[in-house]
């Protein structure tokens, strides 16, 4: 292996390179660590973060979901199950003719791609910021309307800090025959 011998200039240059390296690590030692101490601290997710799903309501309490099951058709993992039922005058859940009587998402099959959110005509199913959805038993991962539907409060709500969708609190459009 032919190499020319290192002169003193080469040696000094190498020593300067080493010193540079040591200076870098030493300065890193004096830098505040960038670690986020989970679970005591959490990072705020981006506005468009695709976390746990939510079934939204209008500001008067009516569910936005009309049971059209376009989300189930769009889902690449076939994780959504929708069974629609007719709204009657005495029992009305959503403005319009139909509502989702059964709405289930299998969180193990779900890949959190957001296609259901894109497909929904009313903006009922959206993906929120929640990502801590671990559980112990496989059967507990099938979320029904009881876990997906957002709760209704009669007083006006501020926009939730965890969801940037203004659609959370909008009024029902006139065209749907809302009360």
């Amino acid at each position: 292996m032919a190499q020319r011998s290192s002169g003193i200039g080469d040696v000094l240059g190498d020593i300067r390179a080493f010193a540079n390296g040591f200076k870098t690590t030493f300065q890193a030692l004096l830098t505040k660590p960038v670690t986020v101490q989970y679970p005591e601290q959490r990072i705020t997710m981006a506005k468009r973060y695709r976390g746990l799903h939510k079934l939204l309501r209008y500001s008067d309490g009516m569910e936005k979901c009309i049971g059209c099951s376009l989300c189930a058709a769009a889902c690449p993992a076939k994780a959504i199950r929708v069974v629609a039922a007719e709204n009657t005058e005495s029992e009305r859940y959503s403005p319009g003719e139909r509502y989702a009587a059964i709405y289930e998402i299998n969180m193990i099959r779900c890949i959190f791609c957001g296609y259901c959110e894109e497909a929904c005509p009313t903006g009922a199913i959206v993906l929120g910021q929640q990502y801590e959805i671990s559980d112990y038993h496989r059967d507990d991962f099938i979320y029904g309307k009881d876990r997906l539907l957002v709760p209704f409060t009669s007083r006006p709500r501020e926009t939730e800090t965890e969801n940037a969708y203004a659609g959370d609190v909008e009024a029902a459009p006139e065209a749907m025959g809302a009360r």
Partner: protein
Amino acid sequence: MDVLGGAGGLLTLVSPLGAVLGAQSLDAFVVVEAIIYAALLAFVLVTGFAYSTLLERKLIGRMQVRYGPNRVGPYGLLQPAADGVKLFFKEDVVPATVDRPTYFLAPMIMVVTALLAFAVIPIGPTFNIAGHPVELALMDVNIGILFTLAITSITVYGIVLAGWSSNNKYSLLGGIRSAAQMISYELAIGLGLVGVLIISGSLSLQDIVNQQDKIWTINAFRTPIGFIVYLLAGIAETNRAPFDLAEAEGELGAGYHTEYVGMRFGMFFLAEYVNMITVSAIATTFFLGGWQGPWVGTIPILGVVWFILKVFLGMCGYMWLRATLPRIRYDRLMRLGWLVLLPLGIANVLWASFFYALWQTFGWV
């Protein structure tokens, strides 16, 4: 009593009790002191090993702009305990085709030599308890450093036997490479230390430390080349980054401790870190003045504090190197040992002789 003294002189190489027997008077106080000191030393070294693993992880973490382990206890202080428990509870798998006596012997050799090499190092000045002088070295024999160098040479046996008895071609090769590296750098270590020996005129570590009482008598200033040679060779001797190709092979393919699991692997780990502590301790003893420091004359126990501080800085230096430098390829490593450090070591001996001659002739410091 003289026969006892002679036999004791030989036994000194084998056990601390030998140091006791070699003493001219078989004083009960000396026996008690030796036993207490030996037990304390073993305990301190093993605890030091445990917490130097934590220091490494936290220090290297901080150099990588992250926290080290901080979950297990406050600031991660119970992490070594958790690691120890984990290693103990691992299943003790012994491969069927290993050479059983050697397989079990190799980690023992590593641990014993690692702990024993520390026996001659003085950690503090000699002071008096109830009229008896108490030396803060387990044995201050007049062959001092020769003892430590001999013991660390036996470590090579541990590595080769570990690799060989594993009945695994790759472990064997890894063990041989690691052993070759250690043997090569022992020469450089010796030459780095010879410079100090020429200036001090004694192999005994107590004498070497006692002579470094003023700031201009510190051997790092008198034999700077020797200091650097010793540090580099010491890092290579302990198979630490950037000279840790033998260890990395354990991650990449095989190394001499591949076939070891659980606490048996922990023994190799312990031996490595205790060797690091020993190299740091010898570097501070020879080149940085050992336990010397300000105000040691008035408060003798402060000497122990200075010693621990210097060894701690040495350990931090080890970890700083590991965090900063990439690994050196094995053939370049060997070239460094034979073609750079050996000539520098010889140059160091020449310089030390020259310096000593001038010092003796003209009375310079």
